[in-house]
């Protein structure tokens, strides 16, 4: 009795100390540095944009985890391939002169690029599922994870070998290269587009899951594959559909990140992929709204954290991972709870 209470108390105490330290640090830095409000707003907006991208990728992790209980470690690479495909689509569109056309043409071209990127990711995701994951569906959990690590490496280095080392630079058309300036706050158009497109796609996904027959089948398969099959659900098809949805979102993220960061290369999916996974875990893996909020929170922490704590921005990854570790210490199933945890009894 005493022991368990003591360890719980210890963890709580530790939590209080950590929070107190962070608050103290933020307050002292805030006073000492005295950044203008506009700086914080700009950073906050960056955080939301980053969060939006993470969310699109995080949803893929969460979807696959929700159904197969495996971490699709290669999901970041699926996103990267979307970015690469989008890059070539952009080259093609530029060669046709679409990027200098009227607004309508440019918008259509951008949509074309987005869709091509999504297609590239979908093909990759589905192929992965077929070749690297499906044969392992009944294997112990470690086995598909290792296979996924292999897939991640394979995709990265194949892209490196096939498309070369040099980064591929996205050139934004004029239409989206500017931004809105109010006072000292500058909001790039790409940021706006990313944020709203993310929200739009996430809502779409949510509706598919909750309202459609496919979504219902996905939820049923997540709970119990054999019983779902007894109801006449083609489990393989539903799993493929899950990969299609997750990969499509990742592809969209890849293209948007390409426009935002202006470059894509073989390893540009790796760190965002890890971050997105972190975000999914933060929100409670398997939990769709959790993944969205976890991503936005992580984006904000990354954007605001270094300045608020008064440390160099190089440490933003450290902050992100530290947050992950801390959250998991206090809430092992994420902030919003792992929806599917009871399956794993």
């Amino acid at each position, binding site marked *: *009795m*005493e*022991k*368990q*209470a003591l360890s719980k108390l210890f963890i709580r105490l530790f939590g209080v100390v950590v929070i107190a330290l962070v608050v103290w640090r933020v307050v002292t830095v805030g006073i000492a540095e005295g950044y203008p409000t506009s700086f914080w707003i700009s950073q906050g907006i960056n955080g939301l944009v980053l969060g939006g991208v993470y969310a699109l990728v995080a949803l893929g992790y969460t979807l696959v985890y929700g159904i197969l209980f495996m971490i699709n470690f290669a999901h970041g690479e699926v996103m990267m391939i979307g970015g690469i495909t989008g890059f070539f689509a952009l080259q093609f569109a530029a060669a046709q002169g679409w990027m200098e056309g009227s607004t309508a043409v440019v918008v259509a071209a951008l949509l074309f690029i987005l869709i091509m990127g999504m297609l590239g990711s979908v093909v990759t995701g589905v192929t992965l599922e077929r070749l690297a994951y499906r044969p392992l569906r009944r294997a112990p959990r470690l086995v598909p994870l290792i296979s996924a690590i292999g897939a991640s490496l394979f995709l990265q280095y194949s892209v490196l070998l096939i498309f070369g080392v040099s980064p591929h630079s996205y050139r934004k058309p004029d239409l989206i290269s500017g931004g809105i300036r109010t006072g000292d706050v500058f909001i790039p158009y790409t940021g706006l587009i990313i944020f709203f497109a993310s929200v739009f796609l996430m809502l779409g996904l949510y509706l598919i899951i909750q309202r459609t027959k496919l979504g219902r089948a996905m939820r049923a398969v997540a709970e119990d594959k054999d019983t779902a099959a007894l109801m006449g659900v083609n489990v393989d098809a539903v799993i493929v559909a899950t990969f299609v949805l997750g990969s499509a979102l990742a592809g969209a993220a890849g293209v948007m990140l390409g426009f935002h960061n202006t470059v894509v290369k073989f390893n540009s999916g790796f760190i965002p992929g890890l971050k997105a996974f972190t975000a999914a875990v933060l929100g409670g893996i398997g939990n769709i709204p959790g993944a969205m909020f976890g991503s936005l929170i992580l984006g904000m922490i990354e954007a605001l954290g270094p300045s608020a704590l008064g440390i160099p921005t190089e440490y933003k990854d450290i902050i992100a991972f530290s947050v992950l570790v801390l959250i998991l210490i206090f809430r092992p199933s994420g902030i919003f709870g792992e929806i599917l945890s*009871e399956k794993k*009894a």
Partner: protein
Amino acid sequence: MAALLEAKGVTKVFGGLTAVDAVDLVIERGSIASLIGPNGAGKTTFFNCMTGLYRPEKGSIHFDGHSLVGQRSDQIIGLGIARTYQNIRLFKGMTVLENVLVGQHVRMKASPLGAVFRSPFQQAEERQAKEFAQELLEFVGLGGEGETLSTNLPYGDQRLLEIARAIGSRPQLLLLDEPAAGMNPRETEEMIDLVHRLRDVKGITVFLIEHDMKVVMNISENITVLDYGKKIAEGKPAEVRANPRVVEAYLGPGVLVDTSGGLEKKGEKL
């Protein structure tokens, strides 16, 4: 007889569902007692509260002078309560003998350093552990199976091995969760005999959950009946059998009583 274990007002809630509801229970030292009731009545949950897997929201459980609530399961087995599981949970990749050796873990003391340098103490302890494991296997009737992989044992023998593993920890109280489930009549007879020998030869107090009324009525000195998490009756077998509430909630008027004992798969979740 003195009470070995005494539970008072034990309550366990899952979500909104009260799985165990203010249950009082006393197990006499040296007795064989049973816990019965329909599926989902909270029997296994009660076991889990006793062995530290769950922590009851309310109530106290005292065992041999120690409070059990809040203790971890590895501490509880150290105090002398061992158990088996409804859906057999052996260490599948281990041999039969190794399973029983793990069962003795809590009674062994050699440190990792002792293992690396093969200290005389460690060697003696390992040798004794192996001898004791062999003895226990012979006790349950698996003497020749030491090197068999535990998953390769037939179903009934797996149950026996679980009991051997549990008594490896030299418990005072052994909790058996449906020991006769899925056994044919002959195996059930043997199980009844084993439970008797556990108490008579090994001096272990036995508390068991069982659906097979043949077993329950045959060996229990005391029966507690749970329904919807509440204790609805307790007493000697004859008393319980005659209790109208038990008949209504569990035994039924007779025609449709499940007498075949046990159910194929137990993963009943709340």
